[in-house]
């Protein structure tokens, strides 16, 4: 397509046709500022906004060889904070893109206009390397004050580009009264029989309206500011945005669309999954005496993971330069022969070995849950990418990803779990949901045997084990660190919660082992852990929860709450009590069950001799794959986690026995 467009461009140049780019701004005229806009004292869209865009318009002209954007935004400033955040503008661009025709002005509250002077616009090279540049046009709007209106516009040119798979945003860091996009599609000369389509996500379902000069427009009003929240779904899942794309069919039938896409991938990849004689021979050797299908697959999986060096793995100890020098593997036989490959090579070798062993193996494509929640009813390839190898086992497809290090056999990265995966096939591509690992697969198991002194110091041995996704995250966080830094990470983790904690004899195991659980073991001393008054000691037996704030601390929530995966926590804490102290009116928090989704239970007991306290805690969350909770359920969810937090912070009183 690129070459074709270039040819057309040359043809146009020869005949001297003037291209109609930059139609939007004829002359230097600004739109009139209505007195009401100048008189505005409060925002329209969000009452507490510091500034609000009155309008934000972008003309996207895809009819030329260059893709051209004409931006125009008018902003009302309400507060000092609005002045500070909105009056400095950076327009970054890179490569062959360029920015031109920047103009701006400030309309002060009394109607006085202060123009942005041309020499107040600076071109900055942010970074430059061997002719490659990241640049920015930067300027500060003059005479900005609360009550003023600022407006500015510019033209962005992307040479030899087209608006295919282009994301257009409808939300800014401030609310917007009116967002309007004008779109001028590429002509048939450029895109043949493909037509421009748009799809809006998480916003008003507004139709394109035919406008002047071949443009179509789309308008949205009263767009709130976009602000991140902790534990929210991915940005593309909550923000209002629009995708522009070109297709032959305006409304393809999903089944056919996915069938075609699956076939295309199948055709492309089939040779890369082919098992030749060496691969077949290797498969037989690897499988050896394994009998069950699961056992066979496990052996093939382990071979790919442990015997083939993954050059993408941090633990491979390869520099980027060394990676770049590596020869490309063109087939599973190449990967097998060289004993190394990238993540994709290893996945494809696994597929070839599985096929050689008689399994039906296919490439699976999926979206990733950390970027978008995909729906197969949406016939858009934009979200799909090759993700894993599907193997038919019994009546089901199972998914494997030996090329992803640190994830145990039988699991995928959480981003690929619980999503519809397209199993690519020559004739019958179909969607199969990848399973989401149950809570017990991602377990944080903590044990401590501690001694409590009369002065409140707690001291003893601690062990923490992480499996599944929890283990993967711990490994990812630590695998690139030195042993000293890993210890520092652990110390920081504890000292954030118990500022006086002293850790020693630290052992950190299985940091780079994909199968074995990530493990911490250490000696701990926490002076002042228990509070002492005249005759009592106050002790929080939930040692592992000490100092952790409640998960949800704010009352308002705009977006859904999204946990990445289900998980489980198991704690056992033994605390030897100081001599002469006994429990005083001890009780324990009531168990708490969230039907099928989660459970929190605490057991507190005392040894027969009354000297050792036993604390057990069991908690899981995300049962039945419930990890997404709409914003409306936030108060309930908050209450659940507040209750759990209170139970975790349950305090016991130890009383000194009377001295006879």
């Amino acid at each position, binding site marked *: 397509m690129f070459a074709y467009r270039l040819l057309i461009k040359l043809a146009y140049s020869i005949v001297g046709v003037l291209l109609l780019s930059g139609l939007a701004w004829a002359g230097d005229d600004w739109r009139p500022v209505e007195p009401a806009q100048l008189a505005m004292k409060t925002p329209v869209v969000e009452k*507490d*906004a*510091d500034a609000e865009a009155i309008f934000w318009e972008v003309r996207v002209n895809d009819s030329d060889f260059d893709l051209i954007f004409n931006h125009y935004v008018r902003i009302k400033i309400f507060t*000092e*904070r609005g*002045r500070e955040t909105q009056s*400095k503008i950076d327009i970054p661009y890179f490569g062959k893109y360029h920015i031109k025709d920047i103009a701006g002005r400030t309309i002060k509250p009394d109607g006085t206009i*202060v123009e942005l002077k041309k020499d*107040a616009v*600076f071109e*900055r*090279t*942010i*970074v*430059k*390397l061997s002719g*490659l540049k990241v640049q920015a046009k*930067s*300027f*500060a709007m*003059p*005479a*900005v004050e609360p009550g003023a209106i600022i407006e500015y516009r510019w033209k962005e040119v992307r040479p030899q580009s087209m608006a295919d798979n282009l994301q257009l945003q409808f939300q800014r860091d401030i609310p917007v009264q009116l967002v309007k996009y004008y779109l001028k599609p590429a002509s048939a000369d450029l895109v043949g029989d493909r037509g421009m389509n748009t799809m809006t996500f998480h916003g008003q379902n507004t139709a394109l309206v035919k406008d002047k000069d071949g443009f179509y427009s789309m308008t949205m009003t009263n767009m709130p500011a976009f*602000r991140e929240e902790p534990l929210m779904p991915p940005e593309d899942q909550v923000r209002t945005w629009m995708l522009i794309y070109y297709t032959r069919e305006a409304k393809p039938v999903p089944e056919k669309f996915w069938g075609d896409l699956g076939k295309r991938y199948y055709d492309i990849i089939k040779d890369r999954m082919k098992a030749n004689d060496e691969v077949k021979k290797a498969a037989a050797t690897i499988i050896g005496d394994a009998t069950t299908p699961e056992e066979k697959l496990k052996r093939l999986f382990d071979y790919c993971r442990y015997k083939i060096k993954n050059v993408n793995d941090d633990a491979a100890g390869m*520099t*980027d*330069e060394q990676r770049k020098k590596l020869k490309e593997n063109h087939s599973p036989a190449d990967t097998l022969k060289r004993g190394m490959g990238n993540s994709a090579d290893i996945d494809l070798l696994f597929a070839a070995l599985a096929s050689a062993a008689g399994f039906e193996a296919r490439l699976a494509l999926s979206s990733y849950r950390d970027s978008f929640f995909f729906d197969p009813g949406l016939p858009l390839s934009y979200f799909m990418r090759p993700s894993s190898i599907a193997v038919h086992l019994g009546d089901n497809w199972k998914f494997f990803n030996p090329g992803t290090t640190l994830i145990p056999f039988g699991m995928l990265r959480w981003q690929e779990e619980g999503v519809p995966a397209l199993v690519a096939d020559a004739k019958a591509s179909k969607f199969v949901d990848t399973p989401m690992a149950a809570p017990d697969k991602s377990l944080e198991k903590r044990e401590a045997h501690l001694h409590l002194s009369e002065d*409140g110091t707690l001291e003893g041995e601690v062990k923490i084990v992480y499996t599944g996704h929890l283990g993967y995250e711990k490994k990812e966080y630590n695998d*690139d*660190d*030195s*042993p*000293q*830094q890993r210890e*520092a990470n652990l110390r920081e983790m504890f*000292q954030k919660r118990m*500022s*006086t*904690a*002293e850790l020693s004899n630290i052992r950190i195991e299985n940091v780079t082992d994909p199968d074995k659980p990530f493990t911490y073991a250490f000696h701990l001393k926490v002076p*002042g852990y228990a*509070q*002492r*008054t*005249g005759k*009592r000691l106050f002790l929080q037996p939930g040692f592992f929860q000490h100092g952790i*704030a*409640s998960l949800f*601390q*704010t*009352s*308002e929530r705009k977006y859904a709450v999204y946990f990445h995966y289900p998980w489980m926590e198991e704690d056992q804490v033994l605390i030897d009590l100081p001599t002469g102290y006994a429990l005083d*009116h*001890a*009780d324990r928090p009531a168990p708490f069950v969230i039907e099928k989704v989660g459970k929190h239970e605490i057991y507190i007991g005392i040894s027969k001799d009354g000297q050792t306290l036993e604390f057990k805690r069991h908690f899981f969350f995300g049962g039945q794959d419930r990890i997404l909770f709409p914003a409306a359920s936030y108060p309930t969810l908050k209450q659940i986690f*507040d209750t759990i*937090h*209170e139970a975790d912070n349950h*305090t016991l*009183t130890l009383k000194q026995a009377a001295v006879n």
Partner: protein
Amino acid sequence: MKAFRRHRTFADRVSGFGKGISAAFFTRLLALCALTLLINTSAFAGDDLPDWFRQAAKSTPSVYAKDVPAVVLLNERTVKVDEEGKITTYERYVMRVLTMEGRREAHGLATYTTDSGKVKEMRGWLLRPSEEVKKYGKDQILDIALDSNDVFNEARARVIEARDEAEVGAVFGYEYTSEERSVFTQFDWDFQDRMPALVSRFIMNLPAGWRAESVTFNHAKIEANANGSNYTWELRDLAPIEPEPASPRVTSLAPRLAVSYFPAANAKAAIGKSFEKWSEVSRWLFELSDSQAVADNAMIAKVRDLTANAKTELAKIQAIGRFVQGVNYVSIQTGLGRGGGYRPHSAIDVFNKSYGDCKDKANLMRALLKALGIPSYLVSIYSGDPTYVREEWPSPQQFNHCIIAVKVSDETKAATIVTHPQLGRLLIFDPTDDNTPVGDLPDHEQNSLALIVAADAGALLRMPSTPPEANRMERQVEAILGADGSLNAKVLERTAGQAAVNERQAFRRLSKPDYLKMIERWITRGATGASVSKVDPLDNNAEGKFALNVEFTAARYAQVMQGHLLVFKPTIVSRRESLFLTEGLRKHPVMLNAHAYTETVKVKLPDGFVVDEIPDAVKMDTPFGNYATSYEVKDGTLYFTRSLVVRGATIPVSDYEKVKHFYSLIYAAEQAPIVLARK
């Protein structure tokens, strides 16, 4: 241990006020650079290491603590000044990566300004433990803007980034040659940053008959090894400087050198400026700036308008100060090689655009005050380390910020007035910090040395420091405790001085929804599940005060034990700041900022309960601070007080245990609960 600050070079020196590399930006940029480098495949290999590199790589460092990330094997800068005043800098640098984290130190940096300098040549090498050598030539060298926050800045840097290639045990090094012309005849040199250094030297080659003088900071005087007009200052085996909480800045710990050179009597006129006395520095800065402090009619009218209702001298200054604080901070740095970093834009321009950097804002205020008939002076200061500026080296290069000193009569009283021997009473004010009003000064500027720019009358003066009581927080909590453990509480906080600045910063920086969330998070840290019903902030910036009223309820604040005991902490809301000193050993002094805090908590106890146990009162008096708690129960109400006064002080290492003990007792006292028993 993270150390990004590499030695200051020309671009740093001339960049003047309000400048400096943003570490966060630099980190981001290096990450970007690393990505960019991935697309560049033209690195070549070959064993063509220069001898100086190979020699340095053979050095055997001492054995350091395991968390020391890297060691500098050679750090050498040679500055050659020719008779025309052209300055050529050669730098050689070699370091060894000791830990995985040390890889991020494997980078080279050569700064320059586009208007008066250039990096002529730069090369780097990476010697891997396998003895393989990677060479970095021009295709691997990035050219970056030094400060992305500025609308424009001529200061740039060439960067070699080797962090992704450098494994543990690798040796990275680089050299560069740069040329420049400077407005100054002065240089400074940091012998190390936080990393240990085996050999660090600064060499100056001057034309025959010229001489150099040096001043040493943070170290005993380092004498130059002089050979005619060639000088070498060298230190060896410098230990790492590890970060510690509340420690002095590394700029006050690492050995530094300042060198001034003096041309022969017959030298050409194009040579940069020399300074032997602070009054000369003052004269030079004054000549650069004085003509910029002119007001036009519009400004005079604005002054009249602003001060129309101001009855006193202080009120007039406050009115002008507030207006200038409202001018947007925007930095545009041009003409750096010609002193542009020290010359404010014309006050008229800044007034019309309503934006400028620190020197622009101070100069605008000066022009406006002049229109009012109040004399004032620009003040050069170092923002960020009150101990950075030293009297023994008269140089504008010691400063990175500009504020103002306003001449005031005896009628004006304020905590930030100093007396200049010739100029009299001067009210010090920072118009760039829009959270600190006239009459106060940001804590990181207090007690530092700063230069009053007043032509020949200019002098280095100690900036005022405010007492703890001026930076106080007073909190009152009134609460009702239910028999079921519920709590209904009203919190009233009043802050002043720098304590109010902290509150004001949060209030202004965050949008209203984010501010409310911040308050909710603070309250729920002490009272799980609290429901905040009222947040009422009141900013009285003019008087440097801030008030905050919060009301909340918590269903289960106190823990009920088998229906018999009720246990709760009287410290219902946490203090906003705490210092935790947990390490057993301390290498550097502890720096304490002056502040004070008092809290009175009144809790109405539930009927049917009596106090069964109450913590002992605490009282600590030390030279650096006092802390006290008290408890009293009267008519069914608990009265709890706590107060803290910390005096601004630098506590020597020998007293570390005392200050550690002080803070650990505070921590323990604030955890102590109260036990109520059912009658």
